[in-house]
């Protein structure tokens, strides 16, 4: 299927705030993109890819992403992922996917105890079957420059699970210079089959040179 006829769904929760930016990311890549509301189910056959955008869904109540992860729309997201559909979680979307059990680990408060906002360099580690798989910077020694903006982006996992994530090639990106105390410098992870991916940095905020970097463009093929 060519991107021109492919449809991408952007899942909106109350408090999502990067939804429109992600719509732009999809449109720049030639996708037809629309929003999916957290209270609705959807027909998984209508979409070729899904993105859970950043923000502060449910005001981060209980734990970041915890309440969104139990929204009705997540039943459809889960079915879509189970059938191999590509799902990407960015920032709060990454937190939602870990809370939903679709990605391993958890995101906790930054070790600095502060919200961090700035540019980071990312080292590609293992390829997703879809997301950023054709990225021009995905090469040995290549790095991607993307912005971060989070208070709870420190990747955490108990030692056994961390070993499993490392051994099974589920580390997607590492920070070149760790901004938040993430274990093993992990910035993004994959599920076991590589179709579900999550990262704390924001590819949708790096689409044009005037934004500071164009490295977000290659996340959609």
């Amino acid at each position, binding site marked *: 299927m060519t991107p021109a006829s492919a449809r991408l769904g952007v899942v909106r929760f109350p408090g999502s705030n990067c939804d429109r930016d992600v719509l732009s990311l999809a449109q720049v890549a030639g996708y037809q993109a629309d929003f999916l509301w957290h209270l609705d189910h959807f027909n998984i056959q209508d979409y070729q890819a899904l993105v859970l955008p950043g923000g502060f869904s449910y005001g981060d109540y209980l734990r970041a992403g915890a309440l969104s992860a139990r929204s009705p729309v997540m039943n459809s997201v889960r079915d879509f992922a189970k059938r191999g559909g590509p799902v990407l979680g960015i920032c709060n979307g990454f937190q939602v996917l870990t809370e939903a059990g679709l990605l391993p680990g958890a995101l*906790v408060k930054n070790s600095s105890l502060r919200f961090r906002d700035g540019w980071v360099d990312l080292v590609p580690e293992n390829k997703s079957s879809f997301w950023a798989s054709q990225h021009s910077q995905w090469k040995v020694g290549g790095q991607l420059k993307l912005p971060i903006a989070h208070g709870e982006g420190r990747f955490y996992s108990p030692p056994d699970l961390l070993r499993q994530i490392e051994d099974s090639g589920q580390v997607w990106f590492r920070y070149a210079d760790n901004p938040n105390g993430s274990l093993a410098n992990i910035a993004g992870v994959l599920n076991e089959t590589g179709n579900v991916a999550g990262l704390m940095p924001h590819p949708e905020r790096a689409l044009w040179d005037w934004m500071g970097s164009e490295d977000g463009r290659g996340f959609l093929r």
Partner: protein
Amino acid sequence: MPREVILDTQGRAIEQTLRLNNLAAQSCRVGRFVELTLDGSSDVSKQQADKIAKFVLHNPLLETYELIALGEVMK
């Protein structure tokens, strides 16, 4: 309660304030108290509370939890 390995940011902040006010404690950890009102006998309620805890209230990677029966509520 947050697991021991998790940085308990609220606990640390309170420890610091206690220290600054000469009320130092060896440590301070901050958890969460959730009160549920449930129908049914205490056994049924406990099962339901456990189900709710496992469904959403508790992330086993980060936290531990225990259920405490608070007694009968007046009808």
